[in-house]
Structures are given as structure tokens and as C-alpha cells.
């Protein structure tokens, strides 16, 4: 997982280097990287610490946003704060972190209030209400930002950096606010973990048990607003919701316990934050937001592909090995049938006989026999032209034939299938049926000896010679 992430990071960083070659002529990349991570430069120090803090808090809050299915709320809220940012700026006439924090939080709260008002008073549903508020607040914000830039002091203001983020513009005041919000999030989630968990999972139950669900919901929304507002400087209004959702979504794919999801999401957020800040610095202060989100997306892609339980690669691999097993079991069954047709006289089965029964070419049969012998199920003789069961192969073949015939018999006897309907069904079931079920079927069939076509069902004593006699 981590190695995959690193590999992808490398890919991204090389492409970033390619992009900035024209921008950057005097200094080389190594020096730049050293400058970034040695933390000599105070502004870089702020950028790095700020990115780490915002990664953590975005990951934590984002996890709850994802499991509460409020991802769109995060997006709407982040766009809705822009007018507040602009008004906060106008109020202080400079980029005062505190004024902007207050303005943005108020705008965010007004935005969410408008969403719930629309929901309560009209027939519109939440998604439409969110879309409305997102776009209209954002439009107001853009107008205000453009106005500010036309002011005499405007073009040096750095207010445009709020759109796509600029980690290098993070000041000591910003870091202090970020630290405050991060600590507040960690403290709230640790202290009220139980409450956050139960209200997220089953709000009706939580309310019936006496928990103040509305209060908890609004507290989470307020924390979310704080998180968005402090992350704005680094990630920007447009992409901050991606930093909330992407690390949490990646964590969701990797684990099925909430506390682990929180830890992983915080870690992924941190990685994405640092990566974004670093790459934007390498690229001579390119906007940070897109790089952070790219970092987070890279982590998500890795989780999607290489997740140990639900990852695409693992699932593909499992399916592949399962189909390999089924192919081998079918070949074993065919060898058994060849032997059965001559009443088990003469134990060697010629490749030609196998190919004939399976209606395939000698080459295909040979490939199958090689696969079987590699798994220790048959031994080959006479240059691979004659096959003998190994004890393991014999046992597995008997089990499969037994499963097949018992299932056929069960379908005809108990489920009243017509005898000519059962074969295809049994061809599938024989590979998946468990020992317990087989025993149960056998009991219900009162240890029948023959399948619906009159062929003998291999008994336990054929499969495990030592257990002979237990059948009674």
C-alpha cells in the first residue's frame, strides 16, 4: 500500500518537475527539496506545519462527513464561505486571519441555514438546496473578490489565493488558528467519540436513548465549518471539499472500523497536505490546492487498487485463482470418469482418453495435466502421456464427484427437479459446496449409494480409507 503510494508520488513529482523546468532556471530540484524539508525558512515552516495540521483535521472531519453521507454538504459549505472571506478582508482592509475566520464562519453558517430553510419551506430536496446555495454564494464571493482586487491595495492583497490555495502564503497567525481548530477537532472527537459514532450510525436509536442528536449534529457542522475556513488559505475554496472527502474515502476502502478509518484518514490527509505543499513549492509557488488533491487522489487510487480486502487487484487475483481451481477440479473429475468407465482397472489414464472425454485437443489436455501435476494432484509418466492420481488427487477427485452426484440426487429427490435438469446445476455447485452441507445432504438422502443416472456415489471410505465403516 505505502510502496504503491510512494511510487505514484514519484510519478507525480517527476511530471511536476517537467512542468516547472521553464519556471526554474537558477536553482536545482535537490537544493529546493532540501530547503523545503530543512525548515530553515520560516515561511516554509509555516507552510509545512499548516499543511500537516489541515491534513489531520480534514481527515478526521471528513471521515464523519463520509459515513454520515454529507459529502455534498462539505462542498456547498466550502463554496458558501467565500463571500465571508471577502467581507472579512474588507472589514480589516488587510489579510487578517482572525477577521477572515470570523467572516467565513458566519457566511458558512448562513449558507447551511439557508439550505435547511429551503428544505423545510419548499418541496425541494437536499441536493437541489445544496446546489442552489453553493452556486449563488460562490457567485457573490467571486464578485466581491473581483471588487477587492480592483481596490488600490487589492492586487497585492493575495485574496485571489483563496480560490486555489497557496501554502506559501500561510502566516504565523494562520498556523495558530489551524492548530487551534485541529486540537479542537481531535479533542471533540476523542471525548465525544461514542456520541459521534452512535448518532452517525443510527440517529433514531441515539435519540431514543436520550442523546442530544441535534446538538451533536450542529457541533459537527460547526467543526466542519472551522476546518474548511482554516484550510482555505492552503487548499482554496474550490477544492477544499476534496481534501475532506478523498482521504476519508480512501480510508473507508481500507478498513471496516470507525476508529481505524479516522486514524488512516488523518494520515492520508497529512501525506496529501505535505505532498501538495512540497510540489507547489518546487513548482515555484504553483497553486497548492490542486497538488494536495492530486496527492489525496493518488492515495485513493492506491486504496482502490491495492486494498487488502476490497481492492480491485486482490479481488481479480481471487477470482483468477478460483477459476484455476475449478478448471483443475473439472480435469480431476474427467480422469475419474475415465477410470470409472473401465471399472477402475488399470490405474493409468492416457492423455488421449482425457482429451476425448473432455472434447478438447491433446495440447489442451497436456496443459491441464502439467497444471495438475504442478499442484501435486497427478503424476505423469511416459513423457507426460499417461497420468496417475496421487493420493491427494484421488481424494479431491472423489470429493468433487461425490459433491456432484449428491447434489444431483438432492435436486431430484428433495427439490423435485427432473433428472435431465440437474447436471449443469451440479457442475457449478460441486466446487463451492462445503463439507458440512455435503454431510447434511447425505444424511437427508439416507446415505444413498447411486445418483439419479444410476452411477455410484463415491463414499467416505473411498475418499478417506481410514474412516471406513464410519458411514454406518
Amino acid at each position, binding site marked *: 500500500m505505502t510502496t504503491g503510494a510512494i511510487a505514484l508520488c514519484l510519478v507525480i513529482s517527476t511530471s511536476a518537475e517537467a512542468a516547472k523546468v521553464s519556471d526554474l532556471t537558477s536553482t536545482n530540484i535537490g537544493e529546493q527539496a532540501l530547503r523545503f524539508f530543512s525548515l530553515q525558512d520560516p515561511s516554509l515552516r509555516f507552510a509545512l506545519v499548516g499543511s500537516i495540521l489541515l491534513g489531520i483535521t480534514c481527515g478526521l472531519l471528513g471521515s464523519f462527513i463520509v*459515513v454520515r*453521507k454529507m459529502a455534498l454538504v462539505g462542498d456547498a459549505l466550502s463554496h458558501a464561505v467565500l463571500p465571508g472571506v471577502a467581507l472579512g478582508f474588507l472589514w480589516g482592509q488587510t489579510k487578517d486571519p482572525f477577521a477572515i475566520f470570523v467572516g467565513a464562519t458566519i457566511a458558512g453558517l448562513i449558507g447551511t441555514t439557508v439550505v435547511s430553510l429551503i428544505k423545510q419551506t419548499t418541496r425541494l430536496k437536499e441536493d437541489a438546496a445544496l446546489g442552489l446555495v453553493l452556486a449563488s454564494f460562490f457567485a457573490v464571493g467571486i464578485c466581491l473578490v473581483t471588487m477587492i482586487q480592483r481596490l488600490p491595495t487589492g492586487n497585492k492583497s493575495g485574496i485571489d489565493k483563496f480560490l486555489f490555495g497557496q501554502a506559501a502564503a500561510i502566516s504565523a497567525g494562520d498556523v495558530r488558528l489551524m492548530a487551534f481548530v485541529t486540537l479542537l477537532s481531535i479533542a471533540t472527537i476523542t*471525548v*465525544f467519540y*461514542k*456520541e459521534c*459514532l*452512535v448518532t*452517525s*450510525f*443510527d440517529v*433514531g*436509536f*441515539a*435519540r*431514543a*436513548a*436520550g*442523546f442530544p442528536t441535534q446538538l451533536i449534529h450542529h457541533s459537527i457542522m460547526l467543526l466542519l465549518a472551522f476546518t474548511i475556513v482554516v484550510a482555505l488559505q492552503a487548499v482554496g475554496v474550490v477544492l477544499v471539499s476534496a481534501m475532506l472527502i478523498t482521504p476519508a474515502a480512501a480510508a*473507508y476502502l481500507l*478498513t*471496516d*472500523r*470507525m476508529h*481505524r*478509518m479516522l486514524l488512516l484518514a488523518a494520515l492520508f490527509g497529512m501525506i496529501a497536505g505535505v505532498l501538495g505543499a512540497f510540489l507547489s513549492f518546487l513548482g515555484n509557488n504553483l497553486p497548492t490546492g490542486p497538488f494536495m488533491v492530486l496527492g489525496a487522489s493518488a492515495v485513493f487510487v492506491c486504496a482502490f487498487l491495492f486494498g487488502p480486502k476490497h481492492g480491485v487487484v486482490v479481488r481479480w487475483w481471487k477470482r483468477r485463482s478460483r477459476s484455476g481451481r475449478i478448471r483443475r477440479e473439472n480435469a480431476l473429475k474427467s480422469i475419474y470418469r475415465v477410470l470409472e468407465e473401465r471399472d477402475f482397472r488399470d490405474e493409468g489414464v492416457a492423455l488421449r482418453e482425457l482429451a476425448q472425454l473432455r472434447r478438447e485437443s491433446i495440447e489442451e489436455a497436456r496443459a491441464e495435466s502439467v497444471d495438475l501435476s504442478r499442484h501435486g494432484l497427478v503424476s505423469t509418466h511416459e513423457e507426460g502421456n499417461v497420468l496417475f492420481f496421487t493420493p491427494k488427487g484421488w481424494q479431491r477427485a472423489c470429493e468433487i464427484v461425490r459433491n456432484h452426484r449428491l447434489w444431483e440426487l438432492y435436486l431430484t429427490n428433495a427439490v423435485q427437479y427432473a433428472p435431465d435438469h440437474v447436471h449443469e446445476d451440479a457442475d457449478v455447485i460441486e466446487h463451492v459446496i462445503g463439507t458440512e452441507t455435503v454431510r447434511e445432504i447425505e444424511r437427508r438422502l439416507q446415505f444413498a449409494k447411486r445418483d439419479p443416472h444410476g452411477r455410484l456415489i463415491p463414499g467416505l471410505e473411498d475418499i478417506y480409507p481410514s474412516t471406513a465403516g464410519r458411514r454406518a
Partner: protein
Amino acid sequence: MHDTAPALELHDLTVAYHKKPVLWGIDLEVPQGKLIGIVGPNGAGKSTLIKAVMGLLPISSGWVKVFGQPLKKSLQRIGYVPQRESVDWDFPVSVMDVVLMGRYGRLGLIKRPTKEDREVARACLEKVHMLPYANRQISNLSGGQQQRVFLARALAQESDLYFMDEPFSGVDAATESAIITLLHELRERGKTMLVVHHDLPTAREYFDMLILLNMRLVAFGPTSEVFTNELLQTTYGGRLTILSDVAEAVKEQRILR
């Protein structure tokens, strides 16, 4: 002492859903230690009734008393089994985590579940034969198993009055009989249970008493007395359309909260 007080007492309870009245002036006095079924057609307000009683829906008028006390004072004596479909079963928690939530109400704010709470949760899982699944993620469970987990969580609440919303819907026969055994066991221990139920034939054999509901209380009493053709006809027959017409009018005029 309130020990002889009715488990649940409703007086003139009216409940509106999206401003449309769904329950009209319900009076009810439920004795302790009974297994009670709530039956009625779709849209009769069965779920609404138990949700309103537990304070999950606002009440337009009337009042609720639980063991002779106002609801707020008796929350700890109430256990709840919501409809299975009301939660997201892909939520990242284990079976054990869900059952432990049954202990949260007793713990109050901030406090974490203790070792004893875990013991109680394990015992409750054992009662519904789900202990081997304690560490599974909940999405890997069948419908019947999910229902058992919800029951175990309610058991962990160690309440005196239980509200269950369709615990028998979509479960296998084995789970259904396991639930019935459990309900009978709870009744032996003096617990009171109100169970929303969809299936009339089984309602007759499962419950001691029945609440026949169709926007108003049609009848409440011992199953043998109220499970009559006439009362069922009133409950399920189309004679109540006037009530729902009026409910629409009330909604239009925005009369109720």
C-alpha cells in the same frame, strides 16, 4: 411508588407527519409485563405511534407517560429496535460495536464502555446466538442476522419497556422463532413489549394483547377479545377514508404544528 403504574399511558395523542395528521387522539393504557402487537394497514401510523411515544417525532397534542413518569425521566427504562432498513449496514463498525451502543444510554455523555459493558454485550449476543459473529463487520450479515444484532443491542439496554419496529420483517424462519422465544423470555422477566407487526395470522398466535390501529385507535385488548372479524374489518376496511381526507385538508391549511 410507580411500580404498579401502567408501563405506558397515552392521553389524546395526536401526531402529524410533515404537517399531515397521522394519528388522532389516541388514548391508551398499557399494563406491565405483556407482549403487545401493533397491527393495522399500511399508513395506519404504527411506526409513527412508537416513534412519537419515544420522542422521535413531535407531538401535536396530548401527553405520554412511561411508568407513571414523563418521558424525559424514563428514557433509561425504554429500549428500541428500529426498522432494519433505517441504518446503513456498510457502516464501518463490528457487530460488537453495535451491541455496545445499547449500553451508551446508561453511560451518559463522555464515559466509555467498561469491561462490564462488554460482558453484558457478549451475553446479549449469546442470547441471540450471534456471539461467533462479534468481530464481524456488519455488512457481511444476512437479514435475519442483522435483526438479531438489533435485538441484542436492545437487550443490552436492559430496559423495562421495549418498542420494536417490524422485527419479523424479512427474516428467516429460524430467526423468527428465535425472536419469539426471546420475547417470551423477556415477558417472563416482567418486561413490556410493543411490537409493530405486519402479518395478521401470526399476530394472533404471537401476542397477548393487540393494538388495532388505523389513524385512530380502533381497539386495544387481549388478543382473544379484539381479534374479531368485526374489529379487523373496521381496522382494515375502507371506512376511514374520511379521516385521511380531513388529514389532507389539515395539511393544506397548515393548522397543526
